[in-house]
């Protein structure tokens, strides 16, 4: 309801929105002064370390911590016994329903370890060396159990069972025997049989993708301290300090008001920092020891114990008429959730066909547990894998019908009024505009050489709103602070300040953006789902409007006129009463300077639950060259085009498009988890888990298409999710066209491509 008093500005003349000022936090970050999660030092601080399971699946028969506890310098040791045994209960969790029992068991294993790297105990000691020694002294008696890694193997009837109380939901009647299939969800639109009966051509394929990690540069890190009054303070790098506070309160069964969380700067999250791993352990260790405790994951721990996104198996069937009109689409999606239920399979089923006007469509989605780290959100969770299948199948249809792949998409493009498979009809969207921009881009008509191919793919994401708070404090000299409650991951300080300056009508340099901790600003949902510039930005606009209203009231008092006789323009109050001597305009500084005489400090606030987030669509063009001797793929040229609503700070929007494209390219070409026969991860580091680096890639070109979202006063749409959706298929389509063989399994690593080429040669 938060946006009910907002009106979209149709023909704007903006002073700040759409410009490219230097980011307010830039200087601190490039000079190393910004404090990240591992940078906090407190008097008497201990070092926390985690004991992790060496087994992919094992029953914990006993844990002997006596030797560790007796070691000099060790001040605390915790196991699951030090945490409340929470009931299994689904609760509303904002982004997704949450079972806090599962979250608790993922933070510290109870009864069973479900993946290699699963935390089973934690220690706090005066030095890292003592903590490491204590970890080695903890004796865990395991009964090793059979494990399962692959999603399709986990779905088999005879697969090793992770949870004996997990019964598949979404099937009537619900099964009475436990399964690794946590849930089945189905979406149906129209009559799928009729749709395929109308088709002249049908493409049917299976596609696989590997789990990939978000790959944020900064490992998970936090510090926790307990006050003498029992109040806990946590300093942490996360995507939402209010989320950390809520989760720690639930997991440790304390009141939310007993925890204050102070956000550190964050070195990337991409969805992977929307849950807790270390914070509850650090708080429990601090509570037991009475001293502050700092915990920092190694890169190996990040890979072995924090959530990647799901590995998937997706079956797609698409039907079309000879002229290219799509008649039906069907998907079966099997997504790994990791050790506990909660994969984004449903979101894959909802998004895969969303760019297209399909009258008949169906998606069946399976959420499957296996002995891997619990998956976490990763930009547009679930969507890239589904789009990989759908956009690859579309490319095959274009090839078989001899159609331009952009034309094929354009003739079937969703537009306002198109009904999505998941139910509602779209309002204003800009998908067709991205296709037109792609067609007009010089990239699309650039010539290709031998062993080169061009791939096209599109993608969709809903975008979300949610609860946000903002405050605008006017200082005595007319400067202002804009305080919000969302960690700044993608440059949101700049966009918040710009929106505030736009509404206040003052110089951007006079607005200081501040990220408030949980005690300094009212609740704000986490930084995720591309919601901050939209939802928190809307709160900032409302808080700034509230501030302007107060400034007009104060000016009216100073002039002894009615409120309605005061106008606010360009940061100044103007009196419109014409019957008396003209009154000189009052600046914000002048009004603020005399605020004590007119009622005290001036501060605007807003707390909202924003709705009306405009969906986002993107289209990517990718040129590759494949070395037929080695199978290596070189990205020659890449262009990301997206409907961004309206870009508040275009450079940061472009950065989001570039970052999403690069992460998607890594997903397509190289990234994968490699396990040994015992289910142990063999490549938990950036040397062996190959993410793209700058030298691997050309400059990613971007085109910002602006079809403003009428649900936001400046027309903002979220932009961070969409750009990771198309790249998997864009790259795979380019490679497939370059080598003349359809590639359906990721990653497209040199050995896989070479084997495919060799196999094709042998068969001809």
């Amino acid at each position, binding site marked *: *309801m938060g946006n009910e008093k907002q009106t979209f500005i149709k023909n704007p003349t903006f002073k700040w929105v759409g410009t490219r000022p230097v980011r307010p936090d830039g200087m601190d970050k490039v000079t190393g002064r910004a404090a990240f999660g591992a940078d906090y030092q407190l008097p008497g601080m201990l070092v926390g370390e985690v004991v992790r399971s060496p087994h992919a699946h094992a029953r914990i028969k006993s844990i002997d911590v006596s030797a560790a506890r007796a070691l000099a310098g060790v001040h605390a040791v915790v196991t699951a016994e030090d945490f409340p045994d929470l009931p299994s209960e*689904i*609760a*509303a*969790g*904002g*982004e*997704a*329903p949450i079972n806090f029992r599962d979250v608790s068991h993922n933070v510290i294993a109870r009864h069973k370890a479900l993946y290699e790297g699963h935390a089973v105990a934690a220690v706090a000691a005066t030095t890292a060396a003592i903590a490491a020694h204590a970890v080695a002294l903890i004796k865990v008696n395991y009964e090793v159990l059979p494990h399962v890694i692959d999603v399709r193997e986990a779905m088999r009837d005879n697969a090793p069972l992770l949870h004996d109380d997990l019964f598949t*939901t*979404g099937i*009537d009647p619900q099964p009475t025997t436990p399964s690794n299939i946590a849930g089945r*969800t*189905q*979406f*149906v639109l129209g009559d799928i049989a009729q749709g395929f009966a109308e088709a002249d051509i049908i493409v049917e394929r299976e596609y696989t993708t590997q789990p990939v990690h*978000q790959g944020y540069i900064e490992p998970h890190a936090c510090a926790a301290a307990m006050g003498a009054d029992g109040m806990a303070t946590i300093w942490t790098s996360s995507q939402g300090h209010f989320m950390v506070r809520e989760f720690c309160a639930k997991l440790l069964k304390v009141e939310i008001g007993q925890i204050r969380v102070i956000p550190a700067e964050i070195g990337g*999250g*991409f*969805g*992977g920092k*929307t849950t807790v791993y270390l914070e509850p352990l650090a708080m429990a260790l601090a509570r037991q020891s009475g001293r502050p405790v700092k915990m920092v994951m190694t890169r190996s721990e990040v890979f072995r114990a924090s959530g990647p996104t799901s590995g998937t198996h997706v079956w797609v069937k698409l039907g079309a008429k000879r002229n290219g009109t799509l008649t039906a689409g069907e998907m079966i999606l099997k997504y790994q959730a990791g050790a506990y239920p909660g994969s984004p399979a*449903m*979101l894959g089923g*909802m998004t895969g066909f969303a760019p297209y006007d399909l009258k008949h469509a169906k998606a069946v989605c399976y959420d499957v547990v296996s002995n891997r780290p619990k998956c976490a*959100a*990763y*930009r*547009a*969770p679930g969507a890239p894998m589904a789009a990989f299948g759908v956009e690859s199948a579309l490319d095959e249809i274009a090839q078989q019908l001899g159609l331009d792949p952009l034309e094929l998409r354009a003739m079937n493009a969703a537009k306002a009024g198109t009904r999505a498979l*998941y*139910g*509602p*009809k*779209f*309002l204003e969207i800009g998908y067709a505009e991205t296709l037109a921009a792609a067609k007009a881009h010089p990239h699309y008509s650039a010539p290709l050489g031998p062993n080169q191919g061009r791939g096209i793919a599109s993608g969709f*994401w*809903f*975008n*979300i*709103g*949610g609860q946000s708070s903002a405050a605008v404090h006017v200082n005595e000299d007319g400067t202002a602070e804009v305080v919000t409650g969302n960690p700044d991951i993608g440059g949101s300080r700049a966009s918040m300040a710009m929106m505030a300056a736009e509404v206040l009508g003052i110089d951007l340099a006079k607005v200081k953006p501040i990220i408030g901790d949980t005690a300094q600003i009212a609740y704000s949902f986490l930084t*995720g*789902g*591309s*919601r901050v510039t939209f939802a928190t930005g809307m709160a900032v606009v409302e808080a700034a409007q509230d501030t302007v209203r107060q400034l007009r009231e104060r000016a009216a008092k100073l002039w002894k006129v009615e409120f309605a006789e005061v106008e606010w323009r360009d940061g100044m109050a103007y009196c419109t009463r014409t019957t008396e001597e003209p009154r000189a305009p009052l600046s914000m500084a002048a009004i603020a300077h005399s605020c004590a005489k007119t009622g005290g400090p001036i501060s605007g606030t807003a707390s909202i*639950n924003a*709705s*009306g*987030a405009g969906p986002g669509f993107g289209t990517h063009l990718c040129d590759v060259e494949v070395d037929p001797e080695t199978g290596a793929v070189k990205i020659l040229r890449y262009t990301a085009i997206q409907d961004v609503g309206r870009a508040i700070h275009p450079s940061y929007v472009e950065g989001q498009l570039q970052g999403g494209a690069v992460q998607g390219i890594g997903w397509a070409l190289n990234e994968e988890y490699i396990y040994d026969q015992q289910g142990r991860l063999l490549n938990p580091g950036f040397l062996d888990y190959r993410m793209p680096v700058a030298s691997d890639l050309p400059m990613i070109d971007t085109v910002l298409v602006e079809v403003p979202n009428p*649900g936001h006063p400046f027309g903002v749409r*979220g932009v*961070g*999710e969409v750009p*990771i959706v198309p790249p998997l298929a864009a790259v795979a389509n380019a490679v497939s066209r370059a080598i003349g063989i359809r590639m359906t399994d990721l990653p497209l690593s040199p050995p896989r491509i070479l084997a495919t080429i060799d196999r094709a040669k042998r068969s001809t």
Partner: protein
Amino acid sequence: MATVVLQGELARRYAGGQTTVTIEAADYRALIDALERRFPGLAAAVSVRTAVAIDGVIFQEPLLEPITQHSEVHFLPLIGGG
């Protein structure tokens, strides 16, 4: 009368397979109360696991949202992001 669309488990488990229902309601709270009277258990089922689309706009917490004679209401899985 607003049109409420029920997919999958909601239709099967609570509405006897009925996928489209018409309801007279001024806001979402009244609509969900009316649905609960007709299909007991449905209100609880949609309270924690779903978002709601009203006339194409998706709400995570729609309690006070107005419903019109021509509204179309869908229940969706909760939508997050990365």
